[in-house]
């Protein structure tokens, strides 16, 4: 019985392959976009885990100084008081080709170091013997390739387990290499501690406990991934609209079959189970296709994502994609759960379906209208909930709650709003045909409203994210003009060469602005402090957001500091506040400047002050001020001078172009996801129009019989769907602008630490409107063509079997 019944159920799809394909495609697209995002996130997370947990053992709580470093004596005291701690010293280690993150740990007490050793390649020279040696440095083979010169390096052991750009060694070795004897950056609090200890807060009030996820980097990148996840969810939701449409149609069309099967003795529960099996089968097939699709999308996008992550956050993500079993399972699970959610309504209807009579068309229209009101009320509630959560809480989650509430809420209200507009049209219709058109459009609305909701979401997202990116870009361009004010940037090989270069340049009357900085530990991360030499360039051009009178005078006489927006927002420091740069170094903030494209906190003081407070301030980079016409000549002259071999030079235009390229690349992912979502929405419209096709014939046939040609009917079909798409687009505009505002003023501040002004780009909207209309027209063209070419006998059939 089961096989025969299942065969009868499935035969429907055989006879309607297009419908099956739309269903499978919709579900595959939804799963694909979702799992692409998941794959990217997973890859990035795996990279971070490798970077943070293994080396810093950040799964454990750590103890970090509020400012400065921890002296060795502090560690010894805490150990004596019974606390089990493992010291870590971390710093940048300059190399010819940039710098390495050099991390020193206590090889014996470090919680994860020995694991890394056991997991490493057996062919490498890793052994316990090597481990006990305190003179070795552990490196990833890839890092080693990048190090061109190996002189001065201690013996190297290679291991895949070590992240790229990181060198790991015993703390005694590292403190020598970094020339920081007796200093500790942080202490890992080991998981097992003896009982009855004095609280650390009392023993060492100058230190603070930090748990793994309090890390700055993870908070920053989390928000980026949250953005991606939100995008993935959105595409998934849009895809589910398609699934809902096709599943409902598939069930609607088979009502007669279900009844016949029931009359032939198939029990209701078996029918339901069989339908669920059918859906499960579809979900698994489409989910697998979606996984393949997702893998391809993720592989295509991953290089851009890693560019974004390193550009914006300085986090390294490897550019290759790995297949993770968890990802496969969760992708299929998502497809299955999504299908079930999308078909709950249809399945419940089957369960409630009477064995004998069919509810009339009128009853169904009534149900649809009461459903519209229900949805609108739910929509209003969601909007209210989002607003309330924004008022009560703040931060990223509240921002996203508001965002989701507004988006979903508006989408749910769409059917009611559209039906109001159509009723208004109906009231004002003059001709009989006009009246029919409006009435017919309204009758058609329940069938197509899900697709229109999907379109609304996709359009609003496009407008919102597009406005955000364009506003950011415009701001960024203006900011670069101010920030990159020197005509040429040069970097010398060593300090000797640098000195010669400066002399040589000053003889030629070229203003040389040294670019020097030092990094100090700061609230568990690093603060980069620039030391500047007073110059009109800064006073005129530096991109200030807030500034006090005479701010630069106070900076140059060594009493004040400028900070970047990230630092100001994160620590809530504004002009007039005091800032502790190190425990013994306090200055007044006199200005806040914008600093896009940089995740870290920054400050500017005058150069002599920096030199007084910090050692290890290399003097290798300079910004040169000269007339733009002289730049190319100067570059040639420097290149020809034999003393200046190895000096790297970048002119301003080059640097701007490069920065802009990085910027644009950063948003390639967003753009791609944007476009894909819109494509899915267009597909949803196509699906629902095809879906409606069969139900529409009975409505069209009488009109045709009354003397309207098939061509006319086809054109009407086309215009109808264009009009609905245009109305939806109109509503999407304010929603998109709201989304843009949320992204710029709420989400960005949390995610990046800066707030951006919002600019309006009406031309973009126009382009998007055209795109939406084109999508709607393409979607409507197929059924319209079918209608124009339909055989009269098909239309006559409608009269033959009155339904």
């Amino acid at each position, binding site marked *: 019985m089961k096989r025969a019944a299942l065969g*009868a159920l499935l035969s429907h799809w055989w006879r309607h392959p297009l419908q099956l394909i739309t269903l499978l495609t919709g579900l595959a697209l939804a799963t694909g976009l979702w799992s692409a995002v998941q794959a990217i996130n997973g890859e990035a997370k795996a990279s971070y885990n490798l970077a943070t947990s293994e080396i810093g053992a950040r799964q454990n709580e750590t103890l970090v100084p509020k400012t400065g470093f921890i002296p060795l004596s502090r560690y010894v005291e805490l150990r004596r008081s019974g606390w089990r701690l493992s010291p870590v010293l971390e710093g940048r280690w300059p190399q010819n080709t940039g710098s390495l993150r050099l991390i020193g740990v206590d090889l014996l007490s470090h919680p994860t170091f020995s694991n890394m050793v056991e997991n490493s390649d057996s062919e490498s020279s890793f052994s316990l013997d090597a481990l006990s040696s305190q003179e070795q440095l552990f490196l990833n083979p890839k890092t080693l390739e990048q190090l061109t010169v190996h002189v001065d390096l201690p013996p190297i052991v290679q291991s895949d387990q070590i992240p790229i750009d990181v060198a790991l060694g015993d703390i005694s070795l590292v403190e020598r290499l970094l020339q920081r004897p007796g200093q500790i950056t942080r202490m890992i609090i080991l998981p097992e501690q003896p009982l009855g200890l004095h609280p650390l807060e009392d023993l060492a009030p100058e230190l603070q406990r930090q748990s793994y996820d309090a890390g700055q980097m993870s908070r920053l990148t989390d928000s980026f991934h949250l953005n991606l996840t939100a995008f993935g969810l959105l595409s998934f939701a849009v895809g589910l609209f398609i699934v809902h449409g096709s599943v409902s149609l598939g069930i609607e069309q088979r009502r007669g079959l279900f009844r016949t099967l029931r009359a032939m003795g198939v029990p209701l529960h078996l029918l339901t189970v069989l339908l669920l099996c059918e859906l499960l089968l579809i979900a698994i097939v489409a989910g697998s296709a979606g996984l393949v699709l997702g893998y391809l999308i993720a592989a295509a996008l991953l290089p851009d994502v890693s560019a974004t992550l390193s550009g914006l956050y300085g986090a390294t993500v490897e550019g290759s994609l790995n297949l993770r079993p968890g990802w496969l399972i969760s992708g299929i699970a998502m497809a299955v759960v999504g299908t079930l959610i999308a078909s709950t309504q249809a399945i419940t209807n089957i369960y409630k379906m009477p064995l004998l009579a069919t509810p009339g068309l009128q009853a169904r229209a009534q149900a649809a209208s009461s459903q519209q009101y229900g949805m609108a009320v739910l929509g209003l509630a969601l909007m209210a909930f989002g607003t309330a959560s924004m008022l009560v809480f703040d931060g990223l989650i509240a921002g996203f709650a508001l965002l989701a509430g507004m988006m979903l809420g508006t989408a749910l209200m769409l059917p009611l709003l559209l039906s109001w507009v159509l009723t208004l049209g109906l009231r004002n219709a003059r001709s009989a045909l006009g009246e029919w058109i409006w009435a017919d459009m309204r009758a058609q609305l329940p069938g197509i409203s899900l697709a229109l909701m999907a379109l609304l979401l996709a359009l609003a997202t496009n407008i919102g994210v597009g406005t955000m990116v364009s506003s950011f870009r415009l701001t960024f361009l203006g900011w670069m003009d101010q920030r990159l004010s020197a005509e040429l940037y040069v970097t010398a090989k060593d300090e000797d060469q640098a000195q010669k270069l400066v002399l040589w340049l000053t003889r030629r009357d070229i203003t040389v602005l040294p670019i020097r900085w030092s990094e100090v530990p700061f609230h568990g991360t690093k603060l980069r402090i620039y030391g500047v030499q007073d110059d009109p360039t800064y006073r005129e051009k530096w991109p200030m957001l807030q500034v006090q009178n005479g701010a630069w005078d106070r900076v140059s006489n060594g009493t004040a500091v400028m900070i970047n927006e990230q630092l100001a927002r994160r620590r809530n420091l504004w002009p007039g506040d005091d800032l502790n740069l190190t425990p013994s170094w306090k200055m007044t903030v006199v200005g806040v400047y914008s600093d896009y494209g940089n995740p870290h906190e920054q400050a500017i003081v005058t150069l002599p002050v920096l030199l007084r407070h910090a050692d290890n301030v290399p003097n290798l980079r300079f910004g040169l001020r000269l007339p733009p016409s002289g730049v190319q000549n100067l570059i040639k002259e420097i290149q020809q001078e034999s003393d200046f071999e190895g000096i790297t030079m970048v002119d301003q235009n080059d640097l701007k172009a490069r920065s802009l390229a990085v910027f644009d690349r950063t948003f390639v992912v967003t753009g791609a996801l944007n476009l894909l979502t819109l494509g899915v929405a267009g597909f949803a419209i196509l699906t629902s129009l095809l879906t409606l096709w069969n139900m529409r014939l009975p409505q069209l046939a009488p009109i045709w019989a009354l003397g309207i040609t098939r061509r006319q009917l086809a054109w009407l079909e086309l215009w109808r769907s264009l009009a609905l798409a245009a109305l939806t687009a109109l509503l999407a505009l304010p929603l998109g602008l709201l989304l843009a505002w949320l992204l710029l003023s709420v989400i960005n501040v949390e995610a990046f630490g800066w707030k951006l002004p919002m600019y309006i780009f009406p031309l973009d909207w126009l382009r998007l409107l055209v795109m939406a209309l084109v999508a709607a027209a393409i979607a409507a063209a197929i059924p319209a063509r079918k209608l124009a070419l339909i055989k009269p006998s098909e239309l006559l059939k409608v009269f033959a079997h009155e339904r």
Partner: protein
Amino acid sequence: MADWEMTDNTLLQIRNVSKCYSGLGESRAVLRDVSLDLQAGKSIALTGESGSGKSTLLHLVGALDYYDSGEIKIAGTNLTNLNDSARSELRRNTVSLVFQQFNLVPSLNVAQNISLHARLANRVDQTWITSLTSRLGLTELSDRYPEQLSGGQQQRVAIGRALAVRPKLLLADEPTGNLDEVTSTAVMDLMLNLVHESGAALFLVTHSVQVANQLDRRVHLSAGKIA
């Protein structure tokens, strides 16, 4: 209640069955105290005006609907208080239906439609089905889909489907109501012959006196009561 014993070959017993439709606040009795017997292999024609309750009674016997009082027994099984899976089993194995609107499965071809009920009941007798198909004149049309058939052809498929399972009881509700007169007579003759051959009992709703006269017994329903 009167004591009623089932004689050995009584297939269907309807005793004092009443049925009301309630809707829009009022409740209307459609069947009142209907009692009827049908022996195995015999046939009954049910006639009556439109709205007299013929279809309703047929649906009750087919375990498609529920009565308010009385009792219906089919092959010894009492329908009162039977749950959905037991009713389903009865429909699958004992009773077959032919409706006025054919109710073929549009996505299955003629051959698949004919064997559907038999396959659902797990009782596929291929020789019987083959002979049935050829007797119904459908062999040539086996690969066609319902939408490619005329009304008479569709009804022949529906009859084939109902008989393929070799039911003990065939219920037919104006099976030729949608057909023209010539086709109607041909289809009806064929059906009566085949029913006779298969040994099934027939419970047939019809308007046609001519058809009714061909059956063993004729029962007239008037305003929910047997006249």
